[in-house]
């Protein structure tokens, strides 16, 4: 793109392996000031690994690493930070117990001459920074109490305004709804004008094409293509990523899609006048066997709370649920599970055990089905192996610690844990977040399979594409209330956005 300037960052022949797994093989990568560089590739292709090398998280690798033409070696993230490199990690890495302001200033709080933190000043400046980014939130509230999308926005804001010369965003938009994505892109463009170099990783290829100047494609730890974004297309990128002629895989959903005749099979879930403080107002709906019900809405519309109530993690102020029985609400997640409800929340960290092997992660919810008193590890591994193969989780080794899997593969494990003994009602929050096109397609097929088996499935998402690709019937949730139902009628991305 901007060949006239010399690169601010240059990597040559980077090879990185974890034990015997080669995550990167001989990768060259260059980044210029005032450039937005898009990165795409399948789950496990090595995108995050390369970025973590740049950000000093992984300090052991082979290859040359040059900043401003000078050979450099970061020993820690702190070194990278000092060199002006900041990164938003794929896994949210905020401090949930600190306030919003503390998170914004993490590590460099303003202090007075005595070394005491200037709380008032910190809160004011944090508020101003966030407002510039269109976020309206009390800087003194506890971060962990905010919806996950807002937490992600705050983390992005912190990194964008940290004054770094190189900003790395690893799937930053996965929890954001369209208006926030717009705002993020506007900010990225402004930073580009100021000469910041930006790396942007996403599985949304349209976004990549829209915002970036250069696009690099990774596959199996190798760089397989690098082109100006104006000189390529979605189809070409997908093909480079996964090899098959892949345009068919990614639907754009801008045209009308016809929803089927609503099913009249038995009602599995009946929700009656559910209300929760300021989050949900008078929600009533039904979910039927063999039907996928989509619930769409912007971030913070109450989806998260609704899903938690369905799984007994939150108790509503009023209203009832009935899962094939008498109306009540679940006092605990254990009660919900016994009643046949399963939930995959949007945050992987919330439902996975990073320091435990994959098979223990998959078997945890069904242990009581396979053993009464003593564990049966062999059987657990068998079950896990089957799920790993069915969902094509990479690497297919059930004994590996979960933390060693790439983000998208972890997401698959989160789904896998409920599939061995399918529940009556499966609640999926953002089921395809962080997944590559191929994997998204796999999830769509799995959900259709489960639907054919007679499960009631609820998909909650802030991405119109996710809902459109899966749902037979769609409810739109807006500021805690159901405002529209789409059934047996044409629907498109625009119509959904309009209703929300």
């Amino acid at each position, binding site marked *: 793109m901007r060949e006239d300037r010399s690169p601010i960052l240059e990597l040559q022949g980077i090879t990185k*392996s*974890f*034990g*015997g*797994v080669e995550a990167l093989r001989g990768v060259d990568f260059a980044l210029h000031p005032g450039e937005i560089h898009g990165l795409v590739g399948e789950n496990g292709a090595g995108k995050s690994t390369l970025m973590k090398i740049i950000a000093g*998280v992984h300090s052991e690798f082979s290859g040359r690493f040059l900043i401003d033409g000078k050979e450099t070696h970061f020993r820690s993230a702190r070194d990278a930070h000092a060199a002006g490199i900041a990164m938003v990690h794929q896994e949210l890495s905020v401090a949930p117990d600190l306030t919003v302001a503390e998170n914004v200033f993490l590590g460099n709080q303003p202090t007075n001459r005595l070394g005491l933190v200037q709380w008032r000043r910190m809160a004011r400046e944090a508020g101003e920074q966030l407002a510039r980014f269109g976020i309206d939130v009390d800087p003194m509230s506890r971060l962990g109490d905010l919806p996950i999308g807002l937490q992600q926005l705050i983390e992005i804001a912190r990194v964008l305004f940290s004054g770094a010369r190189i900003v790395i965003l690893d799937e930053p938009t996965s929890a954001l709804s369209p208006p926030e994505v717009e705002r993020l892109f506007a900010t990225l463009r402004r930073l580009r004008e100021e000469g910041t170099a930006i790396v942007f990783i996403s599985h949304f290829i349209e976004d990549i094409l829209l915002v970036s100047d250069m696009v690099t494609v990774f596959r199996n730890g190798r760089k397989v293509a690098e082109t100006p974004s104006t000189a390529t297309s979605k189809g070409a990128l997908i093909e480079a990523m996964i090899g098959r002629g892949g345009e068919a895989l990614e639907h754009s959903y801008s045209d009308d899609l016809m929803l089927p005749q609503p099913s009249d099979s038995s009602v599995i879930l009946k929700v009656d006048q559910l209300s929760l403080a300021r989050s949900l107002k008078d929600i009533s709906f039904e979910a039927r066997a063999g039907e996928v019900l989509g619930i769409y809405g912007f971030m913070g519309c109450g989806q998260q709370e609704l899903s938690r109530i369905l*799984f007994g*993690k939150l108790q509503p102020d009023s209203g009832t649920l009935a899962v094939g029985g008498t109306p009540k609400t679940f006092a*605990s*997640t*254990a009660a*919900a*599970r*016994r009643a046949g409800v*399963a*939930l995959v*929340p949007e945050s992987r*960290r*919330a*439902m*996975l*055990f*990073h*320091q*435990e092997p994959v098979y*223990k992660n998959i078997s*945890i*919810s069904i*242990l*009581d089905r396979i*053993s*009464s*008193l*003593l*564990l049966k590890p062999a059987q657990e591994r068998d079950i896990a192996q089957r799920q790993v*193969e069915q969902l094509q989780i*990479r*690497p*297919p*080794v059930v004994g*590996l*610690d979960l*933390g*060693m899997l790439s983000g998208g593969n972890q997401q698959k494990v989160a789904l896998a*844990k409920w599939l061995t003994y399918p529940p009556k009602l499966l609640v999926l929050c953002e089921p395809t977040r962080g997944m590559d096109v191929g994997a998204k397609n796999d999830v769509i097929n799995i959900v259709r399979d489960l639907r054919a088996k007679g499960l009631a499935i609820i998909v909650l998402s802030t991405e119109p594409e996710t809902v459109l690709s899966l749902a037979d019937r769609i409810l739109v949730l807006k500021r805690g209330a159901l405002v529209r139902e789409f059934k047996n009628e044409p629907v498109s991305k625009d119509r959904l956005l309009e209703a929300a």
Partner: protein
Amino acid sequence: MASSETAVAAGQRARGLAPFLRSQMRNIAPFLTLIFLSGFFAFASPSFATLDNLGNILTQVSVTGIIAVGLTFVILCAEIDLSIASIANVTGIAVAYFTLQESYVNIPNIPLPGAAAILMAILLCAALGLVNALGLTVIGIPSFIMTLAMMQIAAGISAMLVRGQIAYKVPGLITTLGSGSIGGIPWIVIVAAIMLLGGHLVLTYTRFGRYVYMVGGNREAAEYSGLNVKLILGAVMVISAVCSGIGGMLGVAHFGSAQQNEFDTYLLDSIAAVVVGGTSLFGGRGGIGNTIVGLFVLGVLNNGLDHVNIDSFLKILIRGLILLAALVINVYAQRLREKAVD
């Protein structure tokens, strides 16, 4: 697919010693400490490395070991139980309270048959554990505070039962297990070994044991997996109290008397044994194997210091420093492991 699996397996083997050692730091460091201490004392004192003295050490750590079994469950869940020593004390006193004492013991007690006395004592400690459990899970009081209160409550019950007096008699079975021996091996060592083994088997081979590790590893994830987290936390608090109670009863028989404040040092010793052994204070890592190593470290240290000629006040300081070092390693090992996974 098959080829990549073998590649990974080969990779794990070829991974090199350093990262492996780093991730195993929590298990290796206590073991090295133990070897180092044993070597040091064996060198410093001829009377240390004898079979007789090994027996002494084993007997000395038995009561701590019994209490530490339950505490291991609690710490694996990332909770703490500060009432262990108090509950041990009150249970030991209770079993004496329900036993006929000599006429010169001036306690208005309620003598019962031996089996009934033991049953009452067990019920008492289980009930106190249940109160801990309810406070933690139903009301939501942090275990640190809840068990601090229980420490006082149990001490209060002890005081009311003995009223400053000392009781001597306990049921025959308890006397045998606490102070008798079979074939030269003290029963109390055998009981401790059986309980440690039992704890290990439960943690390693049962569904409940897996739940304990998972709840400790990531409580939120356990809840999102539909586990009954409160039930599991409640259960470990009761297990801890009952183990403490058993340790208390045998301890009373072992010391030959039941009185107020008799177990005060066992709180620190038990926590130290678990933590020095390498069980993570953040939960989810460690186990009975670690606790056993920790018990030996403490046992060797306490016993060895008696064999070498140093100021007895200095000994207290040395114990404190060793504990501090173990805590540093414990926290550091957690970080190293997180880094290895990252």
